[in-house]
C-alpha cells in the first residue's frame, strides 16, 4: 500500500512504554477498601514528587482540578514532566509556577477562543522546557495503550508531518495490509489528577457529560488523585453503576473540593469565569505583575477555599451556577 522510506522521529520519550514494569507496579498497588479522604495539601505532599511525570484530567478549563494545580504551585514542585493534552488553564497555572521542565505537547499555551497565555509562551520560548510533539488523538491513544496494557497502539494520524518528526512515535508497516501506520508508545503518568462530579470515600467516581480522555487517564496513571464536587455514599454509586468511570482501586486520594474546577467550567454545575480567566491573561503581561498576582491568589493563600473567598465566595459562585446551561433531569 505505501511506498517510500520509513521515517524516523527525533522527539524524546519522557515516559517509556514499559508494560512489564507497569504490570509489576499495578500488581503491588493495594486494592484494599480504605477511606482515602484527605486534604488537597496532604494529597499533593504524599503523591506528587519533584521530577514526576504528571497529567491533568478534563479539558484545560473544563472540569479541571484547579485546587490540585494551585497546590502543586504552592508547594513549589519542580522538574515535573507534563502531558500537554488538551491543556489550557491547567497549563497556564503550572507554567506560572514554572513547575515542569519537559512536556509532551498536543495543545498548550492557548486558551482556545480566549487567547494565548503570555507567561506560558515566555516559558516555552525560554528553552527551559524540553518538548516532544503529538496531537490530541495520538496523546490520548498513548494513554489508551497504557490503559489496555499494550506497549503501543497503531494510528493513522501524525504521518507525513513535522509533528511526527518531533514526536517519539515510530512508523511501522501493518503485518496484514502492508500499509504505513504510526505506532504510539504507551504513556504511564507517575501521577494524575481528575476532578469528578461525585466520588465515595474509597474513590469510586462518576463524571457527568463528556469524559474527554479521563477513562484512559485514570487507568494509565500509576497514582491518581481525585478531587470531587460531592462525596457520596457507596450505595449511590451502586445505584447508577453505568455512570461509574473510575473504580476505587485506581485511586490514591479523594479530596472533597466543591467548585474545584473554578475558574473553569464544571458541566451541570457552574459555567466558567471568563472575567477571571482574562484577569490571569492580563496579570501575565509582565513577570512582576504575575508574581504579585500569584502571591495574592496562590502563594499567599492557605488553600483553595481562600482563593474562592478572594474571588467573591458564595455570591459569585452562585452567579456562575446561574450561568451554567446544562440542567440535571
Amino acid at each position: 500500500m505505501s511506498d517510500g522510506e520509513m521515517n524516523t522521529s527525533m522527539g524524546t520519550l519522557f515516559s517509556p512504554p514499559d508494560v512489564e514494569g507497569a504490570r509489576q507496579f499495578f500488581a503491588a498497588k493495594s486494592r484494599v477498601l480504605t477511606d482515602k479522604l484527605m486534604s488537597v495539601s496532604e494529597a499533593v505532599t504524599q503523591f506528587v514528587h519533584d521530577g514526576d511525570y504528571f497529567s491533568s484530567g478534563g479539558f484545560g478549563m473544563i472540569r479541571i482540578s484547579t485546587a490540585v494545580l494551585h497546590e502543586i504551585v504552592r508547594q513549589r514542585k519542580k522538574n515535573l514532566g507534563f502531558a500537554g493534552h488538551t491543556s489550557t488553564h491547567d497549563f497556564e497555572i503550572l507554567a506560572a509556577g514554572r513547575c515542569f521542565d519537559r512536556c509532551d505537547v498536543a495543545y498548550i499555551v492557548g486558551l482556545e477562543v480566549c487567547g494565548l497565555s503570555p507567561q506560558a509562551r515566555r516559558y516555552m520560548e525560554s528553552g527551559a522546557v524540553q518538548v516532544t510533539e503529538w496531537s490530541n488523538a495520538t496523546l490520548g491513544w498513548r494513554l489508551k495503550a497504557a490503559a489496555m496494557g499494550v506497549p503501543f497502539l497503531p494510528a493513522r494520524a501524525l504521518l507525513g508531518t513535522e509533528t511526527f518528526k518531533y514526536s517519539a512515535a515510530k512508523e511501522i508497516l501493518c503485518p496484514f495490509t502492508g500499509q504505513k501506520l504510526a505506532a504510539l508508545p504507551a504513556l504511564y503518568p507517575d501521577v494524575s489528577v481528575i476532578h469528578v462530579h461525585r466520588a465515595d470515600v474509597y474513590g469510586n467516581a462518576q463524571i457527568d457529560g463528556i469524559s474527554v480522555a479521563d477513562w484512559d487517564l485514570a487507568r494509565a496513571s500509576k497514582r491518581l488523585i481525585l478531587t470531587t464536587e460531592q462525596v457520596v455514599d457507596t450505595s449511590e454509586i451502586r445505584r447508577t453503576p453505568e455512570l461509574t468511570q473510575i473504580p476505587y482501586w485506581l485511586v490514591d486520594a479523594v479530596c472533597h473540593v466543591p467548585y474545584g474546577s473554578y475558574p473553569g467550567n464544571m458541566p451541570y454545575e457552574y459555567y466558567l469565569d471568563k472575567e477571571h480567566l482574562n484577569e490571569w491573561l492580563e496579570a501575565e503581561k509582565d513577570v512582576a505583575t504575575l508574581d504579585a498576582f500569584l502571591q495574592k491568589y496562590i502563594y499567599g493563600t492557605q488553600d483553595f477555599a481562600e482563593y474562592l473567598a478572594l474571588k467573591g465566595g458564595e455570591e459569585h459562585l452562585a452567579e456562575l451556577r446561574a450561568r451554567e446551561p446544562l440542567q440535571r433531569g
Partner: protein
Amino acid sequence: MANRYNLMELMVCVAARQLEDGKTAVIGTGMPLAAAMLAQKTRAPNLIIMFEAGSIAPQLVKLPLSVADSYTMTGGLMLSNMDETMATCQRGVVDYTFLGGAQIDMYGNLNSTMIGTDIQKPKVRLPGSGGANDLASLCWKTLVITPHDQRRFVAQVDFLTTPGYLTGPGAREAAGLPAGTGPYKVISTLALMGYESETKRMCVESLHPGVTVEDIRANTGFEMLFADNLIITLEPTDEELDVLRTQVDPLGLIIGKRST
C-alpha cells in the same frame, strides 16, 4: 452594500455554504463553529456536529468558548469522549473538519506549532496540533478559515503541524494517510479557494466582492492558481445575515458588535 455586512459575516456565510446537509463534521470553536451553526440553522438542519472532546450531535443554543464546555453538550444525542470522536474520524465516518491555522502553504499544509526554526527554543510558541493533525489526517474533507495575508499564505510553513497534500499528488497516500482525504476549501478574507484536482494546488474559485486577482497575488506568499470559471463570491443573503446575527452570534463574539 458595504454597510450591509462586514468581512467576518461574509466569511462565515461563505463557509456555512460549503457544508452539505446530512453530513458529519468535527468543528473547532470560533469562526468554524459559527459557520456550522449557521449552516445548521439554514440549509443544513441535519448537519451532525461532533466535538473532539466527546459531545456528539448537540443542538447548539450558543457559541461555546471551548470544544469541551457545557455549550457543546446541550441537547446532545451522545456524550462520550475524545476517543469516540477521533475513532469515528479514523473509521471514515466524518465528512468534514473545519480548522483555523497560523500559516498555510499552497498544498494546504498548516502550521500551528511555532514561528522560528528550533522547536526547543522557538521564536513564537503556538499551541501545537491540538486535534488539527488528527482531524485533517482522518476526516474526508478539510476546510480552513483564515485571514489572507503574506504572513499566513506562505511558500513554506515554519513547521508542518497538520497535513494538507504534503508535497503534492500522491504524497498523502505514500505517507500512509487514508486514501481520498485532504484539503477541500479555504475561506479567507479575500476569496474562496479550492484545490486543483491534478496538481493538488490551492486555486481561487471565487473572489469576494471588490477583491481583484492582484489583491490575491499581493497577499499570497506562493503562486496561487485561479479557476477558469473564476466568479465573484455570492454576498450573504438577508436570511443568512439575520440568522447569523440574531441566533448564531447575537453577542458579536465572532462577527463583531454592530454599530447602532
